[in-house]
């Protein structure tokens, strides 16, 4: 039985991310002959003597023309033990926006640095965003080690430098693994390198294959946003459909329906294939309850003994993703779980300076790629968790009412605590 690992890449423009992704796909034999032929043709057209693996992943016209990656792309490959969904995020323009997008669904992030430059500003920014988003595991891939003659001392220094940064961002030591690689040559990506006899850790793929994938939500209290009420008249069926956001649910569990506050008991956890004895985080189910309560889309079923708090006043952290700036007093829409409600933005609080990795003074407005604390007031009460405790219960979108565009990624509370 294969499981699924969702991971993301991050790194600066010229760190060789596309080449690394191309290498992973190529060396896992996930690239087929017609795709390789296309890359070989294009590489010859560009006057190159060896195939440019980055062409495997840069799919849009403008990307090929400019030689850059514009937008998050999703890649798929598998090995005999595991399937992988890779959110390939560009380091170029709008770095925060793309890193936030890729990191929001990632169970692991691969952060690239260039061995010649070590930890640079962009590394600090990306690491800060990955920490803010609570990506559970991190790989520091030190790339282009062939260009520094596989110098162990230089690589050790970079690893040590990064370990200090990761610790200050709140990553546990065992959550970060450093792997020296050359994406161009293939060292330690899929094949172990003969050039690094001093390195006794896993290859990148070996690590991706063996790292545990249990989501942090698995051990958290039960939450299920009700997406849809399923009614079937012939059999008088009424069930509440949704994806278990965190924890587990089983028949007999006492649950509370929020924001209303009614308590009831789970009668059965149904699927089209029949009822389940237990359903865990990520599983789409339909829950029937023992009492006849009025429940609609947007309500949340939660563990009665560990419910989320219900509030109209939120302290949150926003990652601002739009060109349209945010000012205090703005009236927007907020989507949390299956509920969309109106929201008024209160005072803007401290802004995260991702270069210095420190909170600085409150800004007048939020511009694209800014990250800042903010207070919000919602029209309807929301059952929320702190993002630091439960990612799914503490995440929301801010939406522009006239255009419908997504303006911000929102995280309830202050999920990034910076240690001295």
């Amino acid at each position, binding site marked *: 039985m294969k499981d699924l690992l969702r991971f993301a890449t991050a790194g600066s423009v010229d760190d060789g991310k596309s080449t690394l992704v191309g290498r992973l796909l190529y060396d896992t034999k996930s690239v087929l002959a017609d795709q390789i032929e296309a890359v070989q043709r294009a590489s010859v057209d560009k006057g190159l003597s060896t195939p440019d693996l980055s062409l495997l992943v840069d799919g849009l016209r403008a990307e090929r023309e400019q030689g850059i990656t514009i937008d998050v792309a*999703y890649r798929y490959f598998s090995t005999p033990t595991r399937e992988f969904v890779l959110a390939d995020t560009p380091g170029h323009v709008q770095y925060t926006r793309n890193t936030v997008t890729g990191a929001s669904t990632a169970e692991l992030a691969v952060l690239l640095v260039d061995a010649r430059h070590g930890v640079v500003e962009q590394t600090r920014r990306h690491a800060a965003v990955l920490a803010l988003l609570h990506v559970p595991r991190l790989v520091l891939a030190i790339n282009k080690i062939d260009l520094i003659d596989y110098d162990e001392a230089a690589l050790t220094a970079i690893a040590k430098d990064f370990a200090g940064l990761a610790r200050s961002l709140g990553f546990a030591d065992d959550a970060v693994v450093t792997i020296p690689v050359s994406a161009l040559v293939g060292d330690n990506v899929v094949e172990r390198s003969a050039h690094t006899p001093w390195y006794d850790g896993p290859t990148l793929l070996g690590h991706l294959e063996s790292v545990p994938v249990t989501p942090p939500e698995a051990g958290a209290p039960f939450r299920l946003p009700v997406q849809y009420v399923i009614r079937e008249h012939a059999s008088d069926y009424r069930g509440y459909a949704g994806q278990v956001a965190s924890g587990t649910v089983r028949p007999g569990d006492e649950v509370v329906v929020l924001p209303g506050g009614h308590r009831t008991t789970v009668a059965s956890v149904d699927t089209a294939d029949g009822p389940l004895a237990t359903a865990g985080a990520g599983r*789409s189910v339909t829950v029937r309850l023992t009492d006849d309560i009025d429940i609609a889309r947007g309500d949340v079923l939660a563990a009665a003994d560990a419910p989320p708090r219900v509030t109209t006043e939120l302290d949150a952290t926003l990652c601002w*993703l739009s060109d349209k700036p945010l000012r205090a007093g703005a009236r927007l829409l907020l989507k949390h779980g299956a509920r969309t409600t109106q929201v008024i933005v209160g005072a803007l609080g401290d802004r995260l300076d991702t270069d210095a990795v420190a909170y600085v003074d409150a800004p007048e407005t939020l511009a694209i790629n800014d990250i800042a604390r903010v207070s919000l007031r919602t029209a309807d009460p929301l059952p929320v968790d702190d993002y630091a405790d439960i990612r*799914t219960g503490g995440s929301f979108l801010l939406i522009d009412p006239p255009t419908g565009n997504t303006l911000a990624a929102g995280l309830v509370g202050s999920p990034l605590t910076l240690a001295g």
Partner: protein
Amino acid sequence: MTAPVMDALDALESEAIHIFREVAGEFDRPVILFSGGKDSTLLVHLAVKAFAPAPVPFPLLHVDTGHNYAEVIEFRDRIVAEKGLRLEVAHVQDWIDDGRLTERPDGTRNPLQTVPLLDSIVEKRYDAVFGGGRRDEERARAKERIMSLRDGFGRWDPRSQRPELWNLYNGRHAPGEHVRVFPISNWTELDVWRYIQREGIELPSIYFSHRREVFRRDGMWLAEGPWGGPRGAEALEERTVRYRTVGDGSCTGAVESTATTLDEIIAEVTASRLTERGATRADDRMSEAAMEDRKREGYF
């Protein structure tokens, strides 16, 4: 006690069901594009599971080029009847007959589907259109969102897509705009086949190896039909073939194969050194960015 770990197919199934239910909750008039091919058949199977025991709350729409394989049309109509679904058909021929479309000199009708699709969306006021597109199919599709806004002309703008965060899908749209929804974005061709096997999903017979009269063109085996062919030196010959994708007969080629069971197909797909589009879709070969260009015009 913790819940049993979900395998990759369970996780993909749950994600797709979540997406179907989000659309049912947020939109007024969704529709599922259904051609009878393996991806859209999988889509319908997932939709049935998402709302069981209640019926699927959406109709199906087939843009019929008129160049479909008889086995596929028979299958399409039978599945619709068996599952109690509602099917709308937009016949490309109707658009050609009244002059809104002109037959192309090369005879292929695949690119002609866009206009009937967009016209149907406007006429029926569909606001969410489900498709069976997968991001592993093609490089431009790798950039596609699960919920993807289309403007009043049905156009896709890859440079101004909404970021897709966590599993919170933003389906807001203005009147006249619609959203394309791809619940199986994260599936690969092999996932699709393994799931079809696991769930016992029935498919049109042409996916399985059979004897067929075909002719060679551009390195593909095409069947005889109203789309033109064989022409000139092209000669019909009987071969043992099957189809990896199902679409307009003018540009969907068969592959030589002896795979008659799902086990054999999965073994064949696993060992194949060609992508399904590279092997069997002539229209994707037109240029480096053929798919991107067609998607910008409103194609799926």
